[in-house]
């Protein structure tokens, strides 16, 4: 496993905790949707009106956006730009980092303000960081090795179409 980029895992228990924080952030900030995306572009959790969105495409583009911004930061000898804000006529988007692996995305409209969103995001970030740290530890644990009993036949069967 690449130590610079360890595998991300998610378990029922942690997902429940994350979901609770995301749901509360969505309500407290009066946002439309909350997405938690891993920096490689995988959706980890969602709250609010996320079912209205193409979350797969959004996750990939958000991750690309954050990666590009991270690249700019590096060129400017900054460690990282921890937040981004894009303002649209109807919808705006606030991106912030949770630890080093996760992007917290808040999509909001005129129902709230960027200030309130940022305020609530800060609290959610503080609560989310230890959960993802715990998940990172679990991912490194050998007993959590995924699918140890998968066979060549299982893999071949995927392609028998």
């Amino acid at each position: 496993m690449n130590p610079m980029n360890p595998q991300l895992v998610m378990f029922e228990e942690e997902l429940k905790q994350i979901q609770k924080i995301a749901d509360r952030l969505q309500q407290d900030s009066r946002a439309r949707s909350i997405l938690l995306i891993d920096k490689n572009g995988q959706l980890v959790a969602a709250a609010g009106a996320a079912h209205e969105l193409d979350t797969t495409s959004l996750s990939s583009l958000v991750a690309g956006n954050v990666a590009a911004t991270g690249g700019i930061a590096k060129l400017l000898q900054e460690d990282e730009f921890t937040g981004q804000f894009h303002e649209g006529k109807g919808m705006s988007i606030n991106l912030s980092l949770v630890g080093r692996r996760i992007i917290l995305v808040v999509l909001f409209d005129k129902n709230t303000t960027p200030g309130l969103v940022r305020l609530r995001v800060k609290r959610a970030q503080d609560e989310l960081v230890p959960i993802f740290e715990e998940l990172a530890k679990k991912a490194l644990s050998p007993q959590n090795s995924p699918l140890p009993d998968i066979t060549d036949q299982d893999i071949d069967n995927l392609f028998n179409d």
Partner: protein
Amino acid sequence: MSFINYSSREINCKLVYYGPGLCGKTTNLQYIYNKTRPEAKGKMISLATETERTLFFDFLPLSLGEIRGFKTRFHLYTVPGQVFYDASRKLILKGVDGVCFVADSQEERYDANIESLENLRLNLNEQGYDLDKLPYVVQYNKRDLPNAMSVAELSKSLNGTQVPEFEGVATTGVGVFDTLKMLAKLVLAELRKGT
């Protein structure tokens, strides 16, 4: 790196198509997109210039089905092949689970292939990866063109480690799915190791 969601029983992996400019990376993805049934694919996204050259990446999400009760999802990315987009290429390689190097078989693109392959190794090293330890396949594309070099010649210079290699004509789909299937298999086999 892959994302294993035990809660929703999903395995998510990232595959990257790498290679010199105009070798057919985007064409590979377009063919896969066109030939995959709607329920197994998401939207294909191309961040391209006005002249349809890849600017940042192409993205295609695929669901390949279930394995031991886990849904397998593959996110396919291409990099921009043009030499001066190197900073973007590095970003796309972050978190990669498997790489397909698409070579352009035309003789006049020989140097571009070599340069791109060296660039791939270098950029992977910068991210802490070693190409020789990653699931990796090679596709010799544009086999239909009259100026295509022989596979033996290409293999000698571009596939020293003898990873699985395929002949391709991405415009008509020759070799496209064989390449993808082999790469997906290698990635899943690596995942099984849990290393």
